[in-house]
């Protein structure tokens, strides 16, 4: 299935001070970095210097209690990315927005506006929001079950595509002499009536410079995978082991093909937390320093236990994860993809808890080593067909991204597997994705 698009692709996950819970303790960062445009401008400039494909901004519309110990979701990512469009020229801008707590007309309009503001560099990371506290900010006491959330998300995305197609490319005329401003025959109302939404349209924003904004998706539960196969153009899913990653890619591409999609038009870009230094030992020490900055309550072993959904007393540092902990606890409402991927990795490798703690962070795979070692990891996975690249998740921003851009990217470039210059203007073009035809034009 690979072979059409022979370059690596990289997104960057941009979460406040960095992905590591102790990132804000980095001496180079001021505490208010997470609400400072200048901080994000520095990050974006580094990514653009590295010719990376795009920046992905996670989000959830709620005040997370973890704010007591470090930055949490804060600025609206659509507005933040719009501000970043001004200080950048090429790098893609992908805000996260939930299909559960936004009205489709409004969100379709904001993302497409971002696309125009950035000259065709916008994507939308579609999430379905499982956090009850976020729902309560919108007057919703009970979130629908996962099945219904994804069914709703599916309808939402179909509707959004129709709204994005409201205007044919040449519908806007602007002929001053004849007083013809636009051609109503080339402007289409969605007239959508579905299970969840009724929206007339047309959208009041003209068609995207890249056809449509790029749809990104991260879920890897059964429902998430089905959704990805149907809609996602880039997939940001957790993968720990190579073999399951190959299997995941095969499943997604086959499911997409079964739905009539071109399986080569999906970019699989799992998260990767690179920790880079001149020697392996230095890189390990660097990660240890970061881990040692954590508050005792957030100690890595406790974080792992929390992710698994079990009390941390159940984990012993120098033993493998007990087998009974490798099954999904009942009533666990968090993301299932991470759980499945990590537990399979733990079972397959038999690694001790201590080893595992240097292999994952939050929900993603950590790779610690020299620039060559990190480049090797990336190339191995890419050549296996498991991935089209990675979503780089810097533990601390911007410094861990600088390490990647300044030391790993040049190696990949010298190996001829990453671009030496941007060849297009749009996110779609960076990702090697074709512009979709307008669904209203037969």
């Amino acid at each position, binding site marked *: 299935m690979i072979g059409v698009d022979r370059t690596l692709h990289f997104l960057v996950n941009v979460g406040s001070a960095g992905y590591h819970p102790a990132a804000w303790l980095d001496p180079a960062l001021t505490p208010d970095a997470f609400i400072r445009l200048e901080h994000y401008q520095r990050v974006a400039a580094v990514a653009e210097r590295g010719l990376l494909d795009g920046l992905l901004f996670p989000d959830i519309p709620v005040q997370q209690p973890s704010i*007591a110990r470090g930055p949490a979701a804060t600025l609206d990512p659509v507005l933040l990315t719009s501000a970043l469009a*001004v200080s950048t020229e090429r790098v893609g801008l992908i805000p996260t927005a939930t299909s559960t707590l936004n009205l489709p007309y409004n969100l379709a309009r904001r993302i497409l506006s971002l696309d125009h503001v950035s000259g065709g560099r916008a994507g939308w990371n579609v999430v379905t929001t499982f956090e009850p506290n976020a729902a309560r900010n919108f007057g919703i006491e009970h979130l629908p079950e996962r099945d219904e959330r994804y069914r709703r998300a599916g309808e939402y995305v179909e509707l959004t595509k129709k709204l994005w197609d409201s205007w044919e490319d040449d519908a806007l005329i602007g002929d001053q002499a004849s007083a013809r401003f636009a051609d109503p025959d080339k402007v289409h109302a969605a007239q959508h009536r579905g299970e969840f939404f009724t*929206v007339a349209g047309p959208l009041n924003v003209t068609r995207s410079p890249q056809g449509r904004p790029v749809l990104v998706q991260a879920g890897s539960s059964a429902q998430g995978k089905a959704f990805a196969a149907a809609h996602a153009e880039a997939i940001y899913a957790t993968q720990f082991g190579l073999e399951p990653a190959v299997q995941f890619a095969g499943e997604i591409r086959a499911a997409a093909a079964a739905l009539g999609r071109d399986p080569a038009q999906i970019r699989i870009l799992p998260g990767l937390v690179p920790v880079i230094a001149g020697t392996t030992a230095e890189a390990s020490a660097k990660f240890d320093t970061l881990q040692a900055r954590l508050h005792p309550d957030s100690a890595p072993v406790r974080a792992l236990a929390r992710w698994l959904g079990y009390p941390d007393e159940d984990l012993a540092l120098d033993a493998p994860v007990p087998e009974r902990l490798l099954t999904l606890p009942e009533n666990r409402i968090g993301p299932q993809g991470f759980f499945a991927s990590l537990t399979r990795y733990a079972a397959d490798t038999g690694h001790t808890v201590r080893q595992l703690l240097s292999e994952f962070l939050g929900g993603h795979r950590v790779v610690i080593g020299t620039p060559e070692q990190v480049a090797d990891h990336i190339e191995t996975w890419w050549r296996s067909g498991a991935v089209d690249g990675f979503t780089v998740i810097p533990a601390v921003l911007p410094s861990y991204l600088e390490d990647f851009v300044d030391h790993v990217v040049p190696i990949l470039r010298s190996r001829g597997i990453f671009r030496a210059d941007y060849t297009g203007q749009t996110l779609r073009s960076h990702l090697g994705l074709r512009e979709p035809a307008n669904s209203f034009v037969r």
Partner: protein
Amino acid sequence: MSRQVHLNVNILNSGVFGGSWRFPGTDPLAAFGLEHYIGIARKAEAARLDAIFLADGPAIREDLRYRPFNSLEPSVVLAAVAAATSAIGLIGTLSSTYNDPYDVARRFATLDQLSGGRSGWNVVTTAGKESARNFGFDDEPDHAVRYARAAEFVEAVRKLWNSWEPDALVGDKPTWRFADPDKIHSTDHHGPHFDVAGPLNVPRSPQGEPVVVQAGASTDGRALAARVGEVIFTAAQTEQEAAEYYRDVKARAVGYGRSAEGVVVLPGLSTVIGSTEAEAQRRRELLAELVPPEYALTRLAGQLGVPEDALVLDGPLPWHLLADADEAGGSQTFYKIAVGLAQRENLTVRQLLRRLGGGAGHRIVTGTPEQIADAILDWVDKGIADGFNLMPDVLPSGFDDFVDHVVPILQRRGRFRTEYESTTLRGHLGLAVPAHTVPGSGDAADRVVA
């Protein structure tokens, strides 16, 4: 010292007239690109204006065959403009009928962080079927319902803006204390229209809270403006209307326990500038000629709520079809202006269209820079306006003329700032920074604003 004038520029696509996009030398599609907004904002900033202002509605209400319409979403545009400017205020319109309070509060709080405290939210209740149908409704909610919802919406938004105490962000690295949870307060808003748990996930604004802007001429609209509006945008055509509105809305504000100075009243002012009076008149005539006639007639019929064939160009308005303004649906502000104008001056449809000039129903002043400056100062000196919301005839050229020729006159007369004296929109407008109020300890929306 004489009273200082406040000036916003309303970036209405290509200009306030239906034919602005056809004006010679104008890029007809400029309003669909970011550069248009950045260019005008930078010009406004160089002239030390208070703010740029973006109107909005979530639908195409204009007849797209004949003219531009609101397209790019205002909060997205303003975020980009924030990154390209350093002092100018940024006011955007967002509907209280087709949004959620948490989302609106968060977007303006975000804009305030990105801009260092320069944002303002123009609360509108959004008339019209076209918008309603984009949100699953057949028609707009009843006028009174829209305004009741708007009042509660603003109350909830302001509670959210008060989630974080000013010093809640601690950032003490040695003790791992990032923020003080005791200084981040739940909203727990429960009302007929909204339940919002909170807290908002954005720290308190550099200007305390974003500035609340309101327009509205109906009885409900005035009440809302007087209760929550810090900047009030009006459409007064005549001195008499302006005086009545100004006194009424300030008196109502005082009645709500607010200070008269905490309410900045800015009527809309469309400007047509020429280096001589004759040149300005010729420009005005050209603008009227450039309005596509089919467009003008269709639009007026829609705005008056009468069938198109009820309007005869050289006949009077169909008075038997026209309802009392407070009972009419749609935008009552425009309705009152148009009907009032026709009635006062006994105008035919053609004459009325010409007087409205394809404008948005705001006062149009045509003349030399001196005459425009005089017109501005006249109302401010009479105490019936605190300044104006400028609606240039053509964008950007008509605004360039204003900045290059009218602003220097106002500055020479000592009536308009030559340097910014503050870094926030609230500061430019002379509005006090509201004290932090813990949500639930008192109604944030009823709180006295300095």
